[in-house]
Structures are given as C-alpha cells and as structure tokens.
C-alpha cells in the first residue's frame, strides 16, 4: 500500500513533466472517448427509433396468430377462438395495453387510382397507446368505435389516390370462401407517419365494420399485446403463451420482424467494434507516450531500483501513470459527450438524406440517445485495453537492471 502511494505520487508528477505531450495525449483520449460515446448515442438513437417505429407498425411487443398466418396472412387464418372469447380471457389477465384485430391484405380504390394496402380492422379505444396513428392524425379524426364506418388513411396514400378527407374510397379483399369482399368507406381521417411506407400501406377501419365486410363476424386473426420494455419481452411472451393456449403461434416482435429484431443485436456488436477501432487508433499514441516517458526516465528507474524499490512497484508506477492519463481523458471525453448529446436531445434534422435513410427504416430526425450501458462500455473498453496496452512499456521498465540503467547516465 505504501509503495502504491509513492508510485501514485511519482506517476502523477511524472505525468506533468512534459505538459505538452501529456495534454496532447489527454486530448486524443478525450476526443476518442467523445467520438465513441457521441457516435454510439447517434447510432443507438437511430436504431431505437427504427425499432420503436417498427413496433408501432406491427404493432405490439407480442402477437398471437394462426400458426400459418405468417406464411399466408389472409382471412383464412383466423384465430380458433372467437373475438369475444379472446377479449374475455385477455381482459381477465389484466394486460395494460392489448388489442384484438383483423388484418388482411386489400386493394383500396379511389375514383383516380388504386393501391395494395393492409387493412386493419381495429377497436380504436384499445389501439390508443399502441399504434402511432391515433396521435398522428393531421386531418379529420381517428375512428370513433368498432362500428365506425369511416376509414383512416395515410397522407401519402391520399396523395397517391388523389383523394382527400370526406371523399369515398372502396376497399376490396376476400372472405374465407374466397369470394370478393368489398365495401365503400368515407375517409374520416388522414395520418402522418415517420416513415412514408406506413402512410402508403396502412389503412384503419372499425373492427366490426371490417368483420362485416369480410363476412367473419366476431372473429379476429391477430392479438397484439404491448409490454413495458421492448428489449425484454421474455416474461410477457411466456405470459401470453400461457394465456393463448394451443393451436396458435405466439411470437415476440423480434421474430415477427427478424430484420428489426436483428438490428438490436447487430447494433450491440457494432458499438463494441466501433469502440475497439477508435481505441486501437488511440493506443498507438498511448503506447508511444509511455515508451517515451519510460525512455526519458531510465536513470531514475535505475536509481529507484538501486535504492531498493521492487520491480513490481516500478511496473505499478507506469501503469498508474497510464491509468491517470486515461482517467483524465475519460472524464473530459464523457463530459464532452454529455455536453454534446444533451442539447441535441430534441433531434437532429437529417431530412436532406431522409429518403436514403428510409430505405433501411430510419426516420428523418435523429434523436441521440445516451445510454448508461454504452457509456460504461466505452469507459471499460478504454480502461481495460489501455491497461493492456500499457503493460508492455511498464514491464520493460520494471525489467531494467539497476546498474545498467544508472550506467547509461554515466556514459
């Protein structure tokens, strides 16, 4: 302990013997740490937004379907239980937000044009807090109830169909007997979504109205349940599986949208790789600084060894010096990242490249997200790898023969 104390004193003072070199190295570490955290916050914000938007379009963290629904998501793949039976069971389970719906591919036609869409027959009261649409109506209103005879469409779709609020459109799909099922609707609401693709493809109608149109009274083909944390859906999945019983498929959002699901794990891996790459660039400077510092102090190291300091204390002295340098760099880098991210929390407008971003599901506003595990990871990466990088010069310093080190001075 006493030698650690003198080692720490020597390390700290030696650090400031060459102010310029130390400041440059601290600046390099700070900028590296800032880059690690800030870029990670940007990427994390982007991916989280993508995931949240993706879940909003599903929507729900866990869904229940007919086992063949994913292969053929049509009206033939209804859940075995009736809508009212499902409602009774899921209400009794006490889920905060859940909804049973009918979801089928359909064709929407205006007097000008037609498009392929997904028709959602929903209970608007239950969907509030689950889909984004209820809060994103830009014209008109959201659906009033399960028997509302209007539809809500996206603004991009309205533009494509050259239709507008109050106009009539026709939705056409198939009933379970493969007969045409169609109905005229009046557009009662237009919504905006973060992704144009949602505006183009999602159409919302009252659940009972849709059931009547598709000739499947009191039947649904999807139950969606929203949990607390989309990153941890395991417990919710188990609960829903238990409740849904047999003859159905219960899947988390990570499997319902494998691309979206993989984003999170890919992101975690990418963050680590990014941090290591930044550190590798830093490590050259760090090792060079330490090698120079050791080289300049050969005689002192020899003197300390001659006076009876153990090689392990020399080793710890150099390591402490390195860790102090890293710690100062980390402190400044962390503060810098925090000071940069916090003012940008309201979002960075990247609409200039929004179309390109939308190709892989990202919105036009980036919300940097400073997450504690990412900050900790950056700090741990720098400290652990910095410690490892410092071992070589520190080991060399501790291996000097005292008399050889001192003799170098004399010669």
């Amino acid at each position, binding site marked *: 302990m006493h*030698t650690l104390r003198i080692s720490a004193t020597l390390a700290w003072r030696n650090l400031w013997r060459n102010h310029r070199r130390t400041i440059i190295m601290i600046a390099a570490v700070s900028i590296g740490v800032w880059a690690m955290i800030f870029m990670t916050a940007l990427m994390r914000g982007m991916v989280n937004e993508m995931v949240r938007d993706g879940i909003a379009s599903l929507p729900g963290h866990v869904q229940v379907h007919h086992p063949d629904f994913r292969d053929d998501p049509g009206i033939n793949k209804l859940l075995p239980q009736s809508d009212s039976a499902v409602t009774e069971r899921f209400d009794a389970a006490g889920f905060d937000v859940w909804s049973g719906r009918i979801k089928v591919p359909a064709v929407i036609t205006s007097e000008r044009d037609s498009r392929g869409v997904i028709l959602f027959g929903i209970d608007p009261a239950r969907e509030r807090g689950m889909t984004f649409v209820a809060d994103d109506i830009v014209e008109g209103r959201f659906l009033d109830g399960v028997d509302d005879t209007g539809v809500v469409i996206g603004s991009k779709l309205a533009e494509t169909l050259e239709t507008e609020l109050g106009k009539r459109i026709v939705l056409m799909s198939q009933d379970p007997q493969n007969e045409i099922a169609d109905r005229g609707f009046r557009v009662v609401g237009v919504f905006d979504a973060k992704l144009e693709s949602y505006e183009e493809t999602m159409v919302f109608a009252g659940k009972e109205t849709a059931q009547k149109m598709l000739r499947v009274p009191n039947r649904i083909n999807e139950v969606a349940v929203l949990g607390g944390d989309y990153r941890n859906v395991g417990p919710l999945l188990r609960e829903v599986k238990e409740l849904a019983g047999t003859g159905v498929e219960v899947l988390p959002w990570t499997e319902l949208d494998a691309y979206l699901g993989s984003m999170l794990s890919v992101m975690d891996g990418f963050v680590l790789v990014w941090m290591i790459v930044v550190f590798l660039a830093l490590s050259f400077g760090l090792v060079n600084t330490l090698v120079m510092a050791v080289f300049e102090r050969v*005689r002192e190291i020899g*003197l*300390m060894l001659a*006076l009876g300091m153990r090689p392990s204390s020399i080793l710890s002295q150099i390591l402490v010096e390195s860790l102090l340098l890293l710690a100062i760099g980390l402190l400044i880098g962390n503060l810098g990242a925090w000071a940069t991210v916090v003012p940008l929390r309201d979002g960075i407008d990247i609409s200039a490249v929004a179309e390109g971003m939308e190709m892989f599901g990202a919105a036009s506003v980036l919300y940097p997200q400073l997450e504690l595990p990412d900050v900790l990871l950056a700090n741990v990466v720098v400290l652990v790898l910095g410690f490892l990088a410092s071992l070589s010069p520190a080991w060399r310093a501790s291996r000097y023969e005292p008399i050889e080190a*001192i003799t170098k001075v004399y010669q």
Partner: protein
Amino acid sequence: MTAVRCIDLCKTYRQGDQDIKALDHVSVEIKEGGFVCLSAPSGGGKTTLLNAIGGLDIPDSGEVWIAGQRIDNMSKGQLAELRLRKIGFVFQAYNLIPVLTARENVEFVMQVQGLPAALRRGKSTDILTEVGLAGLEDRRPAEMSGGQQQRVAVARAIVSRPALVLADEPTANLDSKTSDALMELFVELNRHHKTTFIIATHDQRVMGYARRLIRMLDGRVVDDIEQNAA
C-alpha cells in the same frame, strides 16, 4: 565485526571483441564503522567492486558477504530488500528523483520501507538539518545547487541508519569547497553513527579523509593501507 567481506571476486565484461577484467581475484574485508576509500584510475575496477558489494552487480565468481550474510547468490527481490534495509547509496550524479522535493527524496527510502508518515517527517527534518539543508525541504532538485543535491542524497542514504553507505565518486561534480564540506559531513556521520563508509574515488582530497585506502589497478587490489585521516 566484519561489515563487508569479498572473497576472490572475478568479473569480466565484454567490450567489442575484448574481454575486460573488471575484478581479478579481489578479496577485501572491511570492519564495521570503517571509513574506506577505493582508489583507482578510470576502468580500474573500483565502481565494479562497489556495485558488487551493493548487490547491484553479480560477480562471475567469488563471494560477497554483508553483515554476515552472503549476497552474491540472492534473488533480485532479496537484493532489493537488502539494499532497502541495509545499504545507503550516493552516486556521482543523477542522485535524486527530479519530481520529488528534497524532503520527499529523503523520505523515499523510508516510504518504500513502509514507515509511518509522522515518523518519516520527523526523521527527514532532523537529517536535512544535520546536513545543513534546513529551510530547503520543499525545493526540488532543479532548484538546488550540485552540492545541495549531493547533501540531499547523503541525507537519503543515511536517514534510515543503514549499516553501510556506498558512495561512487560523490564529489566528482562538485567544486573543492563543496567537496570538502561533503567529506566532512561523511566523517561526522561515520563518527556519530558508526556507519561504515566505502567511497570509490580518484580524488586525492577525498582519499585524504579515509582511514583506510585500497588502491586498485586493472581489477586487482594493488595496495591496502591504513592511514591517518585528515
């Protein structure tokens, strides 16, 4: 009682294609409380002998005993411990750690030994006063003259009361007045504390202070005489 005993020490260095015999069958015995000068021209082997006695260099053959303990077969760790507890060193130059103050330099060995701070402070204050550096405790080496620096080094060497002080050309970088002052300090410490001093030098003035003079040439002891010190 014998402080240092060297028995038939040999040490050969390789320099280019040549083998240099730094120690050639050297045997020396020094009593406790002795004040001995090793004298030789450059390359005569005095520094090598001093380093062998201090456990800084291992002889090719022969034995080195310090206070009845054989040291030439000790491990690095044991040698470090021996140097820490029993031997004080004063080198020709670069004696001090530049980032530490005079007091911290003096306390360095005691701190490595694990002495409590209060005890260290008391001892360092006393010894710095004894070597005439009262008031300069907080100065760093760069803020002191060469003579003052050597005094700090001497203070550090003796502060923990080692049985043996080894000094290698301690006056080489000092003017004659400062050299005399330093040697008088050595003599004083030798008398007061009965510390054994072995000083390697080729300075005639320094030799004048020794009670015993060992002359070396080409790695061999050629003369070993008792004398009346100045």
